[in-house]
């Protein structure tokens, strides 16, 4: 499989590409979040310092139980007299001044062994994940302005001696947003750790990986969140902080080129890790969509079955929908015809009756109007009406 080529950026400007390097094979190692998580949980325990309570705590009394019959609980009690301590319960975890339950011991298994190959598998996975911008973004790094993943800068980065130059380089290369995120996330720790010399917490910024420093480690170390690491001893705790894949890594060209000899390729073993070969994925091609749509698969598929699809028509209410009613009850047509006929006949007769009535009323009205007029005329002929 031909590996893609990665641009090496000039630290003076992100637009100019100084040269190109073939992608080291580690970045194509399988990304195994489960392995990384497992190894990380074990590895994170290896820097622990033992803690325990004193072996004698709570046991430094010759207390003895008073037994039964004295109307007190049977807990061992401090002997003697003359002091408020005498007669008090002792030894038990429930007693005041007693020893705790399950007293912590220094011989707790603090450090965990992890097989070398598993450790290297995890580191390979973590490196591979750092090359995918999706995973780096998901981890929370601000990488919108980074020109390319993995980000490789030319070897002149090794000679950057002043922090302000280091900052300028990061800004040019689009990595400074992550530093800003880290700086702005600095808060006082929640919990008792704040008074135990772990006062502040902040997010992790970019990890700068180099092979030779000519002053750049001092330049970068004061930038908030920025961490430095030699290629030779890349730690999973830096590559996958919290067991989460996708640390934002900035490589120098020398460091990047060294990876093939440190981790090996799929053609040859690692030079600097005896007996180590890059882990192989279960699937050489994990792109399911491509596989499904490939000629090899599509050509062997049976044609898609498009049988008569059962279409269930929408239910329409025959009580309201005349067409459906008619389909269910063909006699409905006759009924409807008869009724409309009757209605129109009724209508006609009704209209006739009304018209006749109107005539009668009209005639009557005329008659009465005539009578009214005649009376008035007669009355007014006799003279003014006086009461």
């Amino acid at each position, binding site marked *: *499989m*031909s*590996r*893609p080529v990665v641009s090496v950026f000039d630290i003076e400007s*992100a637009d100019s590409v100084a040269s190109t390097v073939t*992608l080291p094979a580690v*970045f*194509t190692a*399988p*990304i195994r*979040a489960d392995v990384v998580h497992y190894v990380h949980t074990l590895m994170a325990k290896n820097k622990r310092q033992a803690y325990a309570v004193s072996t004698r705590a709570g046991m430094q009394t010759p207390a003895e139980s008073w037994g039964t019959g004295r109307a007190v609980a049977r807990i061992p009690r401090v002997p003697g007299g003359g002091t408020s301590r005498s007669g008090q319960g002792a030894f038990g975890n429930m007693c005041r001044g007693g020893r705790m339950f399950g007293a912590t011991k220094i011989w707790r298994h603090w450090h965990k062994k992890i097989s070398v190959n598993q450790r290297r598998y995890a580191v390979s996975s973590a490196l*591979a*994940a750092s*090359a*995918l*911008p*999706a*995973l780096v*973004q*998901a*981890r*929370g790094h601000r*990488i*919108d*302005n*980074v*020109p*390319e*993943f993995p980000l490789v800068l030319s070897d002149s980065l090794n000679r950057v001696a002043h922090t302000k130059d280091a900052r300028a380089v990061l800004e040019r290369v*689009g990595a400074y947003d992550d530093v800003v995120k880290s700086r702005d996330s600095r808060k006082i720790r929640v919990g008792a750790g704040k008074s135990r010399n772990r006062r502040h917490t902040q997010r992790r910024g970019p990890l700068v990986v180099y092979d030779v420093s000519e002053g750049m480690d001092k330049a970068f170390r004061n930038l908030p969140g920025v961490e430095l690491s030699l290629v030779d001893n890349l730690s999973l705790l830096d590559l996958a902080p919290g067991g*989460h*894949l996708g640390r934002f890594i900035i490589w120098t060209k020398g460091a990047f080129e060294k990876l093939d000899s440190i981790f090996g390729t799929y053609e040859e073993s690692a030079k600097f890790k005896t007996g180590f070969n890059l882990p192989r*994925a279960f699937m*050489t*091609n*994990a*792109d*399911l*969509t*491509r*596989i499904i749509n*490939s*000629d*090899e698969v599509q050509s062997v598929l049976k044609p898609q079955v498009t049988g008569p699809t059962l279409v269930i028509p929408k239910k329409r209410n025959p009580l309201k929908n005349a067409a459906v009613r008619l389909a269910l009850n063909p006699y409905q047509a006759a009924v409807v015809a008869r009724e409309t006929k009757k209605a129109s006949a009724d209508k006609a007769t009704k209209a006739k009756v009304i018209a006749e009535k109107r005539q009668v009323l009209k005639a009557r009205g005329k008659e009465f109007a005539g009578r009214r007029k005649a009376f008035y005329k007669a009355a007014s002929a006799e003279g003014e009406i006086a009461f």
Partner: protein
Amino acid sequence: FLRRGRPAHRNMSSELVWQIVRNNSSFLVKRNGVQFTSEPGNLTNVNSFKYSGLANKRTIDISATPDNKGVVVAIKSKVSGAARKPATGSNKITLNKRAANKSFRKVAKITL
């Protein structure tokens, strides 16, 4: 054997990225029995493969311009190497009221 169109970078398949990111991402929000993602490129903020802005190769992101007067539509580029290049890997089109017609035409051209 599956040579044509195989991604040069084996690890970049969307299914793989989804398997890693589905339950573990800084954008994932799980509260009160519901889960959402705030990742750019996810138009519904639903945490599923179909809508994922991290896993999918072709995504559309709609966000406000810095001056809050318009909207920036960012579409991930189809070019094969673009997925590794966050700074240049998406076509960004700004839509605001004045340039409305031109912008819509631009967006239509690129999405179709």
